[in-house]
């Protein structure tokens, strides 16, 4: 039986070595003979290499100058033409590139051609000497002994308690990064009974008569543009795509009969997969395609998923018209818009 934890593998008896009985060992082939470089032998080649390195550093200096020419000589204001902006971009980029490139290439070229290149062999340290291990073991034993952590369980237990508790404030701080943990904000949008459907981005209301067959309108709730705070958050939840189909093409499930108006239907534009805007509407096939992961929704079957990773149909916004002929929402969406979340249920 060999000893696995002590000594050299060759002598511990755990490893069989080739030709153990023979005295002959594998010979160290040594290093190849040193070959002098051109710059070592020829003073002219040395001079040339020196010049090349200096030129590379000079290129770096020119690059830095080019950067500052672009930075200071070109003034930008409201009247700046796009071509001037592009010229500055070019100068800044080229300047920085040459400034860094010149130094880097120059230093490597210097080291390769001019700095001494004699070969050096360095011996590897002995792997895991037994004494070092014993010293470390002794030190740890001493620390445990002197601190008295084994003899004083009160101190040990209070230390463990303090360590566990000290992590909790971090959880509190990171939790606060999410401004509102109430999942109900994910269930509610700006849509409510009587809110008019308005064009994105102008915010003008849409008449039912404006939505001709085959049309697609990008819709926001009226009043969204007047919000001063949280406008983008509200928009991200409330955007809707409005389309008109032949009412005969719609397959309506019970309870949703009055959610469309003469074939005009409104669906949330937020994909139920990871929330990209689903707005690629094909007016002949009535497919809605999400550009991110190709989830495809069939508008004629209440936007059920017919392809792709989305798990749920797009929520439908029940709509009708008000007394002036403008399209209005009957209520908010009946299911949360966008991707799933823990409390969605």
């Amino acid at each position, binding site marked *: 039986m060999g000893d696995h934890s002590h000594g050299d593998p060759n002598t511990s008896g755990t490893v069989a070595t080739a030709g153990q009985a023979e005295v002959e060992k594998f010979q160290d082939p040594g290093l190849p003979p040193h*070959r002098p470089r051109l710059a070592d032998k020829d003073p002219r080649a040395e001079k040339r290499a020196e010049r090349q390195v200096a030129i590379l550093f000079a290129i770096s200096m020119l690059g830095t100058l080019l950067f500052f020419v672009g930075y200071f000589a070109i003034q930008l204001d409201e009247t700046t033409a796009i071509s001037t902006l592009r010229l500055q*971009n070019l100068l800044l980029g080229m300047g920085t590139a040459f400034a860094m490139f010149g130094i880097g290439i120059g230093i490597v070229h210097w080291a390769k*051609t001019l700095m001494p290149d004699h070969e050096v062999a360095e011996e590897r340290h002995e792997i895991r000497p037994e004494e070092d291990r014993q010293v470390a073991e002794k030190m740890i034993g001493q620390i445990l002994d002197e601190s008295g952590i084994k003899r004083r369980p009160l101190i040990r237990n209070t230390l463990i308690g303090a360590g566990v508790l000290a992590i909790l404030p971090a959880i509190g701080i990171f939790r606060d990064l999410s401004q509102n943990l109430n999942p109900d904000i994910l269930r509610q949008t700006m849509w409510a009974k009587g809110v008019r459907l308005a064009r994105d981005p102008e915010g003008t209301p849409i008449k039912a008569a404006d939505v*001709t*067959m085959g*049309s697609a309108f*990008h819709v926001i709730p009226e009043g969204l543009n007047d919000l001063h705070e949280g406008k983008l958050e509200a928009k991200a939840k409330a955007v809707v795509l409005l389309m008109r189909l032949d009412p005969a093409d719609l397959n309506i499930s019970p309870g949703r009969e009055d959610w469309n108006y003469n074939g005009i239907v409104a669906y949330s534009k937020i994909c139920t997969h990871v929330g990209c805007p689903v707005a690629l509407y*094909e007016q002949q096939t009535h497919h809605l395609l999400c550009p991110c992961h190709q989830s495809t929704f069939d508008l004629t079957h209440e936007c059920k998923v017919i*392809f792709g990773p989305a798990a749920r149909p797009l929520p439908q916004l029940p709509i009708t018209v008000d007394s002036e002929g403008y399209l209005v929402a009957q209520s908010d969406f009946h299911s949360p818009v966008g991707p799933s979340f823990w409390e969605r249920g």
Partner: protein
Amino acid sequence: MKALSQRRRHPLAAIALLLLGLLVTGGLYAVAGTVNEAKAQTTTYSAQDVEQGEKLFVANCATCHGINAVGAEPGAHGFQAGPSLIGVGAAAVDFQVGTGRMPMQMSGPQAQVKPKQFDEEQTRQLAAYVASLGAGPAVPSEEVLDTTKGNAAKGGELFRTNCAMCHNAAAAGGALTRGKFAPALGGVTGEHIYEAMVTGPQNMPVFNDANISPEGKRDIITFLHTIEEQGSPGGAALGSLGPVSEGLLLWTGGLAVIIGFTIWLTQRSS
């Protein structure tokens, strides 16, 4: 005359004759072209235009769209060969025939652009015939296509809301479902862009004047022409396709450069 007959065997005589011939033909075509353009600008159609258009229609389009443009009977698989053209308007004809999409080269997911088959006069006559069948969007006037009056910034906002999801933020086009695609918009005339918006060709939705006003459409065309003229501010656009082409270049070109430097770094100097 004698001098001329003496020089007709001159080595350069053939070349001179060829140049003369080319100049004459080119000149004639240029004159004919301007006449055609002048005619195409008039949007009122005469009874003769309608009559000529009907002849062209019967000869070239009726196979799929049916006599009197009522649409063909559904075929063996329930597919309609060509839809009814009543009420699609002159704008639809000018777009489909003017860009070469119609007559369709072959059936497939969508009609492809090809060299146009009818000249402007014939296209106008076809449009006149289809417009006479029922009211529909007309070919846009010069006024609504005048991009000097358009606002590119406003157009960009409208484009990003209404068009960019299919046609790409840089108007480079994009894929749709089952082999269909939204074409790139570079090099398309303002007239054709306008007509596509009002008529909704193939799977493109209709953007009528109540959705995007004629001024808004002009702004969009102005925006498209502006981004086409000014080029890409960030250097090579690589097809404006985003991470696919850019990533491919980095994975091939960028890695090749890194490998090259690694070899140079570890190589002994001569």
